[in-house]
């Protein structure tokens, strides 16, 4: 770093008399041989004086009255703090509404894709395997007569067939339960005998 750059960094401290004696001697030695830095010091001194001498403004006569009115409004809850910037109060709700709309649109777009894939088979299940099954033209009686295939049973689609299958399952289950119950009951009866 050149001496000029060093001195430029110290201009304000020199003007305000904040330099250590050794540094002050260094600066003054440099100023005696460098008109550029000497001029910079002169300018900063004038600048500081000019800034201190800037005209002084007073608040308008009704400043306190307006402030009190705003405080009254604030206390009554009829006004937010940012009254003076009220023109921008629409921004937050607008951003919120826009976000909600975007989410709704995205949701609709996403779901419409799913509905399209489900529509041909009218199948309430979301499984792709089931959809493939439902797209095939399999006669209902065959499906109904094949209770061993759970996949085909699921893809039957007909309400009547569903109820029939449920009935047959129930009857099997009921019988099975009965059968099991009878088997369980027999030894108990025997033992009781």
């Amino acid at each position: 770093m050149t001496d000029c750059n060093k001195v430029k960094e110290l201009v304000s401290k020199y003007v305000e008399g904040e330099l250590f004696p050794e540094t002050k001697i260094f600066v003054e030695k440099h100023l005696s041989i460098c008109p550029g830095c000497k001029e910079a010091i002169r300018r900063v001194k004038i600048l500081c004086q000019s800034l201190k001498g800037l005209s002084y403004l007073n608040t308008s006569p009704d400043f306190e009255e307006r402030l009190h009115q705003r405080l009254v409004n604030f206390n009554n809850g009829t006004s937010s703090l940012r009254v003076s910037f009220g023109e921008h109060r629409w921004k937050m709700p607008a951003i919120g509404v826009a976000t909600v709309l975007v989410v709704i649109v995205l949701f609709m777009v996403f779901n419409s894709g799913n509905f399209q894939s489900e529509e041909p088979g009218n199948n309430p299940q979301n499984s792709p395997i089931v959809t493939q099954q439902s797209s095939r033209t399999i006669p209902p009686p065959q499906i109904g007569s094949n209770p061993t295939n759970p996949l085909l049973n699921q893809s039957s689609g007909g309400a009547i067939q569903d109820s029939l299958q449920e009935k047959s399952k129930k009857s099997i289950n009921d019988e099975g339960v009965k059968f099991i119950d009878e088997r369980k009951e027999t030894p108990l009866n025997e033992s009781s005998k």
Partner: protein
Amino acid sequence: MTTNRARKKNRVTDEQLIAKFQQGDLQAFDILVRRYKDQLLNFVFRFVGNRNDAEDIVQETFLRVYKNKHYYREIAKFSTWVYTIAGNLAKTELRRRKRRKLFSISNFVNEERDYDIPDQERNPEQQVDSVMKDGIIQKAIEKLPPKFKEVILLRDVQGFSYEEISQILSIPLGTVKSRVNRGRLKLQEDLEFLFEKKGESREEIK
């Protein structure tokens, strides 16, 4: 002189007033408003360059003091607290304007024109009265980047110490000092007319 000194000595301090206000004394708040409204206006006006906006920001500052009185702690001076609020609001206003300017080409052109006040062809010493001089300095201040502008205003216009500025802006003392120095050097580059020596300007006219 002695009566003034005695008055100052007996004067209730800002910190005592805010303490009273925190306990519900609204008159204490009114006194604080009267003490600070003009100096805050000058600080904010030099910052944003528009009187109406400046007055709105000062009102907003007092509303925030009113609402947030319980957040004030006596570890800091009331003056540094209130200047921090006003400075933050002023910076927000400048950022808002900058965003607006991005969408308005006409504003941009007008503002560029506003800065060309110094008239190079005439003798500035004869032309510039105190009001004009004030206006030119104000325009030069407005051109400064905010980080230099705030320290220059607090130090050279408002007369705060470096330590107080450090508290107001929450930046290290060394940073404040270097920013003040760099800010002054930047500012003097835009204020040529202030530094012309009498002899030099007369020679130019001849």
